[in-house]
């Protein structure tokens, strides 16, 4: 009933919680079971507080996992993430995890392009570490509003062969959108797979560029969800196979299967 990779409830303890930029933080949990079981691109459903007016869990990508610890990057967008930002070492919470269908690693892959916009960097730490472990050369295209919001650069400098950045205000790298970096990187590296996470309009552009270049593309989509385990049908995604659930069929989807028409609302509503 409780095989190692099936989702389970685990009590976790905050080990550290630091502010990385305005409204952005990194929390590390002691979570041995989930940390051992989770695969790149999967997520955890975190119960942040008890007795609060917000009762639902919040889904979070796991940035890195290992040594019994889960590392999560978060942005303060409401009461629940504010409570998370105020959590202190020693605080107890609980997670359901590991959840969802994560990144795929097709055989024979020599080079991967990883494209992350803003907090879309959230599921990319485990991804680039796994790519490195598999001997796949990875390039990261990272975009953010400004230089101080280019998160966790040290992780990528270590694990990626090459990192390119773009900022809206030009304070680091190229001025503009992260997807503006893609054409040159695709031409230079001829990646076998493109991995994408970020605001939905950005994901749609990245997916279109990958499709144009004939490169398979995986996207990690964000949806509001209640249960996180496939029951409530809050998080459905329109695909070529009909409505699929982001929580169990995703959050990672083959970009060519996502029906992007009408997309972008989710990002606006965050």
């Amino acid at each position: 009933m409780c095989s190692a990779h099936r989702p389970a409830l685990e009590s976790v303890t905050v080990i550290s919680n630091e502010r990385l930029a305005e409204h952005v933080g990194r929390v590390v949990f002691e979570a041995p079971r989930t940390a051992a079981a989770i695969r790149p691109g999967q997520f955890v459903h975190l119960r942040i507080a008890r007795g609060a007016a917000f009762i639902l869990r919040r889904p979070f990508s796991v940035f890195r996992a290992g040594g019994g610890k889960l590392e999560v990057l978060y942005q303060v967008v409401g009461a629940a993430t504010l409570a998370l930002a105020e959590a202190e070492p020693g605080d107890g919470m609980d997670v359901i995890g590991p959840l969802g269908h994560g990144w795929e690693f097709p055989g024979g892959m020599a080079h991967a392009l990883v494209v992350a916009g803003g907090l879309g960097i959230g599921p990319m730490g485990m991804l680039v570490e796994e790519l490195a472990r598999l001997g796949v050369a990875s390039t990261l295209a990272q975009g953010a509003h400004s230089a101080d919001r280019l998160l966790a650069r040290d992780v990528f400098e270590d694990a990626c062969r090459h990192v390119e950045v773009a900022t809206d205000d030009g304070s680091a790298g190229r001025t503009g959108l992260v997807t503006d970096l893609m054409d040159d990187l695709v031409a230079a590296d001829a990646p076998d797979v493109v991995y994408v996470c970020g605001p939905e309009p950005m994901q749609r552009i990245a997916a279109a560029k990958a499709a144009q270049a004939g490169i398979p593309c995986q996207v990690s989509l964000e949806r509001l969800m209640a249960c996180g385990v496939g029951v409530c049908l809050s998080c459905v995604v329109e695909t070529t196979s009909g409505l699929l659930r982001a929580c169990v069929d995703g959050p990672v989807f083959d970009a060519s299967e996502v029906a992007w028409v009408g997309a972008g609302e989710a990002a606006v509503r965050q």
Partner: protein
Amino acid sequence: MRVRIGALELRSPVMTASGTFGSGAEYSDFFELSRLGALVTKGVSFERWRGNDSPRMAETPSGMLNSIGLQNPGVEAFCAKDLVWLADADVPVIVNVVGHSVDQYVAVAERLDSEPVVSAVEVNISCPNVDAGGMAFGTSCSAAADAVRAVRAVTTKTLIVKLSPNVTDVTEIARAVEAEGADALSLINTLLGMKIDTRSLRPTLARGAGGLSGPAIRPVGVRMVWEVARSVQVPVIGMGGIMVAEDAVEYLAAGATAVAVGTATFVDPLSAISVIDGLQQFCAVRGIDRVADLTGAAWPERTS
């Protein structure tokens, strides 16, 4: 802990609420389903229903709004997949039945009648999230009576009718469906509500309004169970915002024979189990022999 609902004898008075438990497979990772009094499935229609556009869910103070719209694969796919899986689950199965018309309710109930895995049907005349049918049947005495009479004629299963709180006098509807042969009543379904996104100045849910659930609605549910249980002879299954055992005690004392745990399962998959354990403990501490003795314990004639 045993209670009786129609022809069903349940090992515990705690069920799952429709739409919050799928058909059980997802939560079987977390506990043995056989511990439940009964498992109430997601609503099942005759044909496949696509459900509503997204966003379908919004969190609100101490609760949530949903406008899923009863997305489901239709009764044939449900029988072929969900019921086959449930056959091995060792838990009484109550199938929530939905329709846009009386004929559709009847078609689903008829199809389910030959399925031995199904212990009871719960006729959902109270979903606020569909345009035709759903709540429209549950907010008029005559429409509710028509639907229940038609389903009663084609089912030999225990027949539960799920009532809407979005009415002026829930006891009228309750008496009307009892008169047509309902074996039990379940209430409350979600309360109609709306949230506005203050950035876009548009409703947060794509559909506009949705159904409110969670602890925010518990006092409304308890009051309505009180009213209905005092107006009918058939057992009442109480639900709406039950998070812990004390909440279930409130419903039982208000007149419910059994209870259902819904939104709480999203918060903690083990909620229903905690409620079962907590109820048992409550009875033990209070020297209550049978949980059925709690039903209506708060009524004036019982407390005087």
